[in-house]
């Protein structure tokens, strides 16, 4: 995955731009002018980048590992020089899942409840803090949101689909 990562990203862009080109082509002349003018050069740029990345992989493959470890770690081509900080893939996926889970809880339960749930779970499992500091952190987050958005700005925050559904059921 690491070696071919940039190629996969280029292929994703290639597929995306082709998709946008095909859809854009179906519009009227005036409406498709910008999509056409942008996607065609865009596809050329992506093809060039893909070629560069493939050539770099080929160049690296030709460098046979020596007895003292793998050779060819020069990384003179920027694109293949991924993940310089070497964060394990598992950590990256976990991080994305944390963010995605907050997003899912917000959709379901709205901001007020999800802040309490997320901050408590996050500080307890990710940061491994004591229960006391977890509760303090949760209270701090919730209070600051309440003070800024509800009291000072008088903004109505999203309630969440589940909460709205329950409200509807209870009222009608």
């Amino acid at each position: 995955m690491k070696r071919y990562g940039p190629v996969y990203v280029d292929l994703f862009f290639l597929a995306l731009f082709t998709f946008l080109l095909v859809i854009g082509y179906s519009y009227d002349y005036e409406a498709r002018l910008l999509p056409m003018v942008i996607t065609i050069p865009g596809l050329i740029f992506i093809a060039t980048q893909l070629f560069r990345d493939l050539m770099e992989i080929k160049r690296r493959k030709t460098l046979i590992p020596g007895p003292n470890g793998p050779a060819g770690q020069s990384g003179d081509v920027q694109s293949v020089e991924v993940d310089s900080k070497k964060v394990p893939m598992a950590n990256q996926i976990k991080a994305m899942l944390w963010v995605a889970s907050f997003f899912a809880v917000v959709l379901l339960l709205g901001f007020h409840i999800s802040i309490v749930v997320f901050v408590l779970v996050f500080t307890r499992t990710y940061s491994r803090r004591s229960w006391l500091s977890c509760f303090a952190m949760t209270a701090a987050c919730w209070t600051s949101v309440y003070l800024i958005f509800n009291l000072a700005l008088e903004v109505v925050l999203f309630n969440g689909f589940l909460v709205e559904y329950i409200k509807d059921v209870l009222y009608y």
Partner: protein
Amino acid sequence: MFEAMLNGLLVSVSWPVFSMMIVGVLVGTVIGIVPGLGGILGLSLMLPFTFGMEATKAFALLLGMHSVVHTGGAIPSILINAPGTGPCAATCLDGFPLAQQGKGGRALGAALAASGVGGIIGALFMALIIPVVRPIITSFGPPEFFMLAVLGISLISMVSGDSMIKGLIIGCLGLLMSSVGWDPQTGIVRYGFDLLYLSEGLHLVPVTLGLFALAEVITLIAEKKAIAHKGSAVGNDVYEGVKDVFREWWLTLRCSLIGCFIGVIPGIGGEASSWICYGHAAQSSKNPDLFGKGNIEGVIAPEAANNSKEAGALIPTIAFGIPGSSGMAILLGAFLILGLTPGPMILVKNLDLVWSLIWLLAIANIIAAAGCTAFATPLARLTKLDPGFLVPFILIFVMIGSSLTTNSIGDIVVTMIMGLFGYVLKKYKFPRAPLLLGMILGGMAENYLHLSLTLWGLKFFLRPVTLLLLALLVMSILVPIFLSKRKTKKGVSMV
């Protein structure tokens, strides 16, 4: 004139007006610090409080708030890579790398001082230009707006960092994203996929917050490290940053004036000024290679432009009743609510009030910059905090901030998607700034091109200001190439 100027100053520093301005500055700074809120929301919230208020006091509150929003917005842009306001996104590019290097204090000092100086230059510009602004505004029509947008788009190469091709790919994607939604020429929805949210087009705030702030949150959780690298001293060099602004006085002055000029022309929008100034700074810098990696010039340029453009935008609002930006449209409403009719006559009948506004702009910027600078050192230390403490706050404020853009769930979905996309771009070293530049200027370029072609045909290129802008465009492309070739030649001859 001199009497009106003096009267304006005396009114501005009188206690009732001054205290209102302080309240406005405080609210504006806080609104700026919270990612995604922005000055328009602040103005909308403050407007009801001004009913029945004396005009100068009301404007002290509104203008005090609106003129310093970007000063506060620089703080999260630098410290956590979450732009406090839309135009502050350009500050992230070099501000955040500086914070990672432990130079968050210096970056904050530079940003706040540049904001203050930009605001003062903006007020001065306003005072000088009001009598002669009419021909400037009337000389700008759709062809000139189109050329300005193209000039801005040409800067994609300057914000692409090390890989020009990657920058161009992302720039193209940004331009395509600007075409999402209703096409004003044909009335059809492009790339809407039968979703109501997309028919209105993609909004900049959720895209920006996802692309920069959420991607940074993912990085923080994955790396389990504080923002500032280990061993780096943090926050002790705030005044070094302030000095940088005066060391780079020519850049500060140039970018402030560009910001004012862009602000004066209605229809370009605030976001464009900071990006154009960032690109200009990269083009004219002695160290263009350092841009995007923590060059202090990349912090000074957009921040100076952000605050000065507010003064510029106030000029057509007052002098002609044409709002220079969406924030100014609300301010125009305030004028009408308070029984004042903006237009040329206001300069005759209410000159004292106009001078008060100019003074208020300058004083509010000084107070905001000085106040924030006083807190810059402890704020910069936030970058040393454990991600376990920082992440929940950033994540919550980013999500809420983006959800308030249109009060639609679509904003949160876009932020989430752009966050994941931004992380992938970051991981594979694709520059993210060209996407925003393309998104901001793409729609503008397309609309004005269609309008120009309809009104003038291809002859629109022959208008004097268009030709001037075309010459600027050619120069902006050729001069850096010429300079880099000369630099390479010099390097070769040295060897």
